[in-house]
């Protein structure tokens, strides 16, 4: 039964209008995370563009970018940097793909990239399904900048293959690299050609969302007309008309990076960082991640009947039961640990008991020995005592005899005296 929500007017100031402020304060404290992936052949200026976008030397002399190191196979490399601005903290992760499209045979050079994206999704899925979810680091790729070489003709087969395979996994934003190669007319034609080919192959690049705000809509429309964005990157500062700008110095002029007439760098920067960063994260979470998740879990329940014994990635139970299983696993692990500890404990106890028994026996022995000694002594003493008693008895009898004798003699004497009388 649907609950009817009515709109009521407030009669005074309640204060929940400050809710956005609270959210803002909380998020600022928490800080933000953003993961950006750059893909393109080597030498298209990816590292320079990243340095220009975030005004840091992510790739500098001491830590040269992947382009300066020759790679034989496609690698996927991550670099993290923590940027602070106005009290807001951003943990920026750049995922680079050196070696992409550089070999003679580039079939399947997109596979390591797809595997990397899927593994990040899987990590997130696993951490979401865990019982204890306090820390859930979001390392999913929020945006993939794809660099197109400025040939002026159209997309290469490699470009088309790559974008076809990745447009459903990640937000793909195609860029025309090194745009200072093209004159304005060539650039226009090139862009039209690329958009035509993108539509022809039904590639779904990142779409800027429509908003209710009129002014924002106008901006969004302006951006849409200029897709794909033609960018130039540079971190060298040059003086032009007594103004210090970032640009590239040629004998025939200076191509300014932040000049809207020269290239679309400012549009890219504003879009990527100032207006649409959160939207990119949302689309990744709500669309790409959900796609991945439903695909993965659907595969699980579909295969559940057939592969009962399948171990490894596909579990054979529904999410709830998977949680149960996880818990059971955890419990069995604990039990095992407990058992092990108990065993160890028992062993120790046995040892101790044995030791104690031994010492007890020892003591007992000693005790007996002492007792024997004592008894022996006791007997000895008894003997002595008997002997002594005997002696005493003898002496006493002797004494008595002596006394009797003395008494007898005395009485005799007495009698003698008396006798005389008579």
């Amino acid at each position, binding site marked *: 039964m649907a609950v009817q929500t009515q709109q009521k007017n407030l009669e005074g100031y309640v204060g929940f209008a400050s809710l956005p402020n609270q959210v803002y304060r909380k998020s600022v404290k928490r800080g933000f995370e953003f993961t950006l992936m750059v893909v393109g*052949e*080597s*030498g*298209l*200026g990816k590292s320079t563009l990243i340095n220009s976008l975030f005004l840091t030397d992510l790739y500098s002399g001491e830590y040269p970018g992947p*382009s*300066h190191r*020759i790679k034989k196979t496609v690698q996927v490399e991550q670099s993290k940097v923590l940027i602070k601005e106005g009290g807001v903290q951003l943990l920026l992760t750049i995922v680079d793909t050196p070696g992409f499209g*550089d*070999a*003679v*045979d*580039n*079939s399947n050079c997109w596979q390591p990239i797809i595997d990397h994206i899927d593994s990040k999704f899987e990590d997130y899925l696993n951490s979401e399904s865990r019982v204890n979810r306090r820390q859930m680091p979001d390392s999913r790729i929020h945006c993939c900048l794809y660099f197109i*070489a*400025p*040939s*002026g*003709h*159209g997309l*290469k*087969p*490699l470009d088309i*293959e790559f974008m076809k395979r990745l447009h459903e996994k990640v937000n793909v934003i195609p860029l025309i690299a*090194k745009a*200072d*190669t093209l*004159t*304005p007319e060539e650039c226009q*034609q090139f862009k039209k*050609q690329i958009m035509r080919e993108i539509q022809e192959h039904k590639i779904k690049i990142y779409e800027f969302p429509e908003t209710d705000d009129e002014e924002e809509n106008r901006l969004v429309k302006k951006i849409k007309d200029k897709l794909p964005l033609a960018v130039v990157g540079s971190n060298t500062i040059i003086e032009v008309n007594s103004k210090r700008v970032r640009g*590239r*110095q*040629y*004998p*025939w*002029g*200076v*191509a*300014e990076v932040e*000049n809207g*007439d*020269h290239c679309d760098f400012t549009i890219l920067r504003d879009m990527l960082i100032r207006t649409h960063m959160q939207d990119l994260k949302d689309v990744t979470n709500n669309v790409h991640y959900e796609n991945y998740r439903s695909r993965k879990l659907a595969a699980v329940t579909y295969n559940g009947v057939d592969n009962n014994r399948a171990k490894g990635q596909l579990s054979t139970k529904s999410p709830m039961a998977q949680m149960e299983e996880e818990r059971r696993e955890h419990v069995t692990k604990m039990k095992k640990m407990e058992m092990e500890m108990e065993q160890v404990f028992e062993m120790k106890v046995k040892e101790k008991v044995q030791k104690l028994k031994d010492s007890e026996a020892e003591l007992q022995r000693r005790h007996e020995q002492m007792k024997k000694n004592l008894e022996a002594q006791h007997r000895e003493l008894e003997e002595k005592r008997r002997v002594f008693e005997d002696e005493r008895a003898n002496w006493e009898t002797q004494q008595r005899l002596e006394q009797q004798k003395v008494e007898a003699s005395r009485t005799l004497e007495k009698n003698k005296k008396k006798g005389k009388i008579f």
Partner: protein
Amino acid sequence: LAKMSGGGSTLLGYIGIDTIIEQMRKKTMKAGFDFNIMVVGNSGLGKSTLVNTLFKSQVSRRSAGWARDEKIPKTIEIKAVSHVLEEGGVKMKLTVVDTPGFGDQINNDNCWEPISKYINEQYEKFLKEEVNITRKKRIPDTRVHCCIYFITPTGHSLRSLDIEFMKRLSHSVNIIPVIAKSDTMTIEERLEFKQRVRKELEMGGIEVYPQKEFDEDMEDKSDNDKIREAMPFAVVGSDKEYQVNGKRVLGRKTAWGIVEVENPNHCEFAQLRDFLIRSHLQDLKEVTHNIHYETYRAKRLNENGGLHPITCNDTQESNL
């Protein structure tokens, strides 16, 4: 009276031996000559534009009717287009051989094979004509005299495909590497890139034209050394004209300036043109004929004992 002796002898009067140069010149002018140039590189590097700029006319395949945004072909094709250019009474039959589809696929293994096959086919054609009993007065020369290889201006180093191609073809044809679309790079980046490319070519043992081993004398050597130091040339091509300082120049107009194609401060196109056309054109043909073609011929004649069928038939015919 001139004396005939082995060593140089002083002439006692004017004979006119030096007019032989004039006679040769007249003959060459009447006969005209062939020049075949091949351009190899990824699509979109400005190959056709450069050829048009070099010969100041619309000689590339593009002008022969193919559209600009033609789809990249699935396999490598070899397309040859010929034009006859005339200048100062001298006729030149210029053939531009284009290789669309090179290096554009996802899997570029052996993409140099069709090109190698084409080059060898031209040698084979020439060889067959040469071996004929009744030879034509002037054998049509379709051999590739010069192959311009376009390097992508990544700013870092040569790609594996570049090295593979040049390694395999530097022994059968004169390769001249150029850095395409060099208005991508600033002057410092360009210098660095050129140095690195030269080093990589050296490390790979790749001999590009002008090859060191074919320098004939000190003068040649010093000239060619200067050129070798400046190679690979960083070029920009354009067939559009703009007004700069009251002059009409070929160039590319960007929002921050006009890149002048023939301005030596901007790019090395003028150097390439002088080198290719004004000083070494004949040398290219000679090296192709005397060295690359001879190598091919020797190899061919050593295997299977040579080309029997043609000579046998002709002998029989002539005997009858």
